[in-house]
């Protein structure tokens, strides 16, 4: 029982990180029909930028904020300068993001070198919590809580504000939305930037545990894509459910059949695709 609870909490921690990455991916997909190969790179850039800031200033909070802002700005520029010209044409967009993924990978190597590192734990959250027989690291619980907060904030913005209404309209039917006077191009830039920033924030949150190394971008990308596919492309609710499903399955898969851990991800994806090709909450 203790084992089950510990593993479930670990699964929820993976789910929390995945949600931070996948929510931006799925929203950008919803508005722009873009398959963003560079999304894992935004996560990676986040860890590296935070690392530099924390080394210089010693402040974790500042590191997280700077990483979020810098990477969001990078994402905004990539979208406005390079991706926008292709409209909703998915192939050149995808190739473009692939180019940027390689570019970012090599630039990170150039600037920060190839040595792996981890970010420091925040002082208050270094220990662990004990409830009965279950011992669980505080930091992981903290990340779960933060992701839940981010999720709630995104939901409020999406469901309760004007910009959220515009966003939903643009996801539903971009042409009709722009005919109604919504600036879909600017909205796309905004969504892309927020998505990049969230991925970078995810990088900082995962930093003390997963750290930063060359290749982390493509290690996390497939998991994020499986989340988006399972949950339904373009759906925020789908990203929540998909993250939990993938986080749990991945975690229990790793614990129970480590050699086929990657393969266990396959099962929920096939199941969902066979029953509902658009994902749990996606629409055709």
């Amino acid at each position: 029982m203790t084992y089950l609870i510990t593993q479930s909490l670990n699964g929820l921690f993976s789910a929390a990180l995945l949600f931070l990455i996948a929510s931006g991916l799925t929203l950008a997909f919803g508005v722009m029909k873009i398959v963003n190969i560079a999304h894992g790179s935004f996560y990676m850039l986040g860890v590296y930028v935070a690392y530099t800031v924390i080394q210089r200033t010693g402040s974790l909070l500042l590191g997280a904020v700077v990483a979020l802002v810098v990477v969001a700005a990078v994402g905004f520029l990539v979208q406005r300068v390079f991706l926008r010209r292709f409209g909703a044409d998915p192939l050149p967009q995808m190739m473009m993001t692939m180019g940027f993924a390689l570019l970012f990978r090599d630039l990170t190597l150039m600037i920060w070198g190839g040595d792996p590192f981890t970010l420091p734990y925040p002082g208050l959250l270094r220990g662990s919590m004990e409830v009965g027989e279950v011992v669980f690291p505080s930091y992981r619980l903290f990340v779960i809580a933060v992701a839940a907060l981010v999720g709630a904030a995104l939901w409020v913005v999406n469901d309760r504000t004007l910009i959220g209404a515009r966003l939903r309209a643009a996801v539903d039917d971009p042409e009709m939305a722009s005919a109604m006077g919504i600036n879909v191009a600017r909205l796309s830039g905004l969504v892309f930037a927020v998505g990049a920033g969230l991925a970078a924030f995810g990088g900082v949150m995962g930093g003390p545990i997963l750290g930063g190394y060359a290749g982390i971008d493509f290690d996390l990308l497939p998991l994020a894509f499986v989340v988006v596919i399972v949950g339904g492309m373009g759906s925020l609710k789908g990203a929540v459910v998909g993250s939990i499903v993938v986080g749990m399955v991945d975690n229990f898969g790793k614990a129970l059949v480590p050699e086929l851990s990657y393969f266990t991800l396959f099962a929920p994806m096939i199941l969902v695709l066979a029953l509902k090709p658009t994902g749990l909450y996606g629409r055709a």
Partner: protein
Amino acid sequence: MAERKWHLPVIVGLALVLATGPLVLSSYWIGLLTQIVVLAILAMSLDILLGYTGLPSLGHAGFFGVAAYGVAVLSTTYRADFWTSVLTALLVGIALSAALGLIVSHVRDVYFLMITLALGMVLWGVSYRWIPVTGGDNGISGIPSLEAHAGLPLAGPAVFYYVTLAVFLACAALMRVLVRSPFGLTLRGIRENEARMKSLGFNTWLHCYLSYVIAGAFASVSGVLWAYYNGFVSPTYLDLTASSELFLMVTLGGPATLVGPLVGAGAIVLLKNVMSAYTARWLLILGIVYIVAILAAPQGIWNLGRPKAG
């Protein structure tokens, strides 16, 4: 095939280089030519999906890699003979594409892109983590040379090159027949307007499925040759970088042509090798090539001068 004035001389030139190159070139350049020819088979196979059927597969290196692993495992761990290794590896590649095809053949466009990407990465994950069979990150080395394994009387880079060239020509001829057959025309019809093809009574699901399996089969052929060429397999054969490089070969060369993928494969192989000889930053340069290629020649080199298809 030669639709523009400059196409014919280029084809003649390419044919001359491919046919006579190894007679005058050093073994390093014969190696590069071999790479180009093997990867051209792979790029052409992707083009059947991407260019002719309009299904953008981003996991296509998976079949290539699985067939390569097939040869590697059979010829080293099980010490199987040549034909057993080759035929089993091809069968595994085809069976895999037949299985995965069931999952992907009803999705289209960007959904197809994303799902094939995820499937491709799962295959990569299996090759990376299933250590007892695949050797994990270390891969499998010690694959015998094709000449020795098949018991050919001659050996050497030029011999292997001409074997590869023969396979390439056979595959290219088969694919040319395929894309010009009624089947191939139906694929193009589906690419242009699936709803119309459906209402004309075509089983579009079955056509897409067969296209996927055929592309997987040719990719497996290419994977078998690649395993023998390198004598070594590793998870990098089927990672996302491999699949998207392949994608770049087709889009850079010219989708929906069969010469285009050959041109694209040649351009990328030469660029990678020449660049990595001069700089360690070739990843950066490759990234820039992606961006510039999409901006400058979105239709591909072989389609330059052709008005954009509706």
